[in-house]
């Protein structure tokens, strides 16, 4: 329709290696974005001054810390979760900067739209909350997770199987797929409207551009919001899982 040629999916998400092509060290656009997502937050915190009255960059750094502290840790874990602030803040900032490259010109690709990044983060969260559970509750951690208090003995194998499956398999799976699918969907949405705008503009249907182009702009704004929200949700769920490992009985 309208001479619309949609690019195959490989053109949208697969990037050739720029350096060390074909080896295990292959360095492509996704790796570059991931590296930047690591370096930018580090730079923000390194270059912000420690004044009493914050100005400029320090506002950004303090705002991020305060957001994770007030909106993520205190509701999800409680005051004893404040010692996990460095972990949760790094997770939040890494995911956020990996996502926000979706709308930055030249890059236009969220690093988290490839499964490797979310999967690795989710596996890290799995290791972290299992380790915390063992450290603070010992072997009781497993039985507490498997059976909520006062489950009848006859039902314990079934409940235990379901609970262990949902805790150690479905939690990391859901965490990874949520981030991955949200970013991939957003990326494909933006590409679709971009392709539509180009196709409409080059033919006799160009007045329709008045409809499609504002929509593209609106969706770009929406994707900025989604990038932030998904990073926030990822940090929040990590905090909730850590909280459940600290106090597994409830």
């Amino acid at each position: 329709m309208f001479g619309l040629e949609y690019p195959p999916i490989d053109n949208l998400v697969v990037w050739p290696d720029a350096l060390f092509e074909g080896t295990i060290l292959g360095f492509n656009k996704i790796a570059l974005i991931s590296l930047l997502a690591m370096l930018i937050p580090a730079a923000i915190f390194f270059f912000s001054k420690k004044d009493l009255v914050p100005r400029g960059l320090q506002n950004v750094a303090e705002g991020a810390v305060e957001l994770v502290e007030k909106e993520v840790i205190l509701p999800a874990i409680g005051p004893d979760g404040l010692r996990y602030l460095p972990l949760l803040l790094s997770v939040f900032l890494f995911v956020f900067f990996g996502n926000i490259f979706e709308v930055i010109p030249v890059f236009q690709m969220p690093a988290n739209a490839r499964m490797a990044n979310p999967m690795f983060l989710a596996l890290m969260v799995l290791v972290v909350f299992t380790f915390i559970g063992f450290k603070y509750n010992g072997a009781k951690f497993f039985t507490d997770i498997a059976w909520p208090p006062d489950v009848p003995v006859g039902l314990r194998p079934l409940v235990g199987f379901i609970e262990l499956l949902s805790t150690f398999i479905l939690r990391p799976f859901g965490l990874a797929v949520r981030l991955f699918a949200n970013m991939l969907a957003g990326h494909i949405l933006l590409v679709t409207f971009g392709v539509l705008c180009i196709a409409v503009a080059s033919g006799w249907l160009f007045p329709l551009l008045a409809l499609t182009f504002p929509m593209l702009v609106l969706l770009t704004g929406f994707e900025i919001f989604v990038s932030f929200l998904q990073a926030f949700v990822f940090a929040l769920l990590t905090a909730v899982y850590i909280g459940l490992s600290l106090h597994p009985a409830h």
Partner: protein
Amino acid sequence: MSVLATIAAEAVELAQSELPAADQKGIAGAAGAGMAYGLAAIGPGIGIGYLVGQAVQAMARQPESAGTVRTNMFLGIAFTEALALIGFVVFILLKFA
């Protein structure tokens, strides 16, 4: 439902016709993919609508607890939305893989 049934019947008919095997697989995949995402979006749509509606009501009735309600709302949305997103992943797998 009858529209869905018509699409499915058309897809089956096309898939059984004399087309090459790759085309048949593509047709069946496209029809299945569209239906997978469409069906997967119904439940979470209702769920998120209900959830956010109740959260807004709670915030309106008790503005001082808005912070807690908002955090829990995002948690609930995250869990509900996961179902729709798995549907989206199935769509991508059926359509492109």
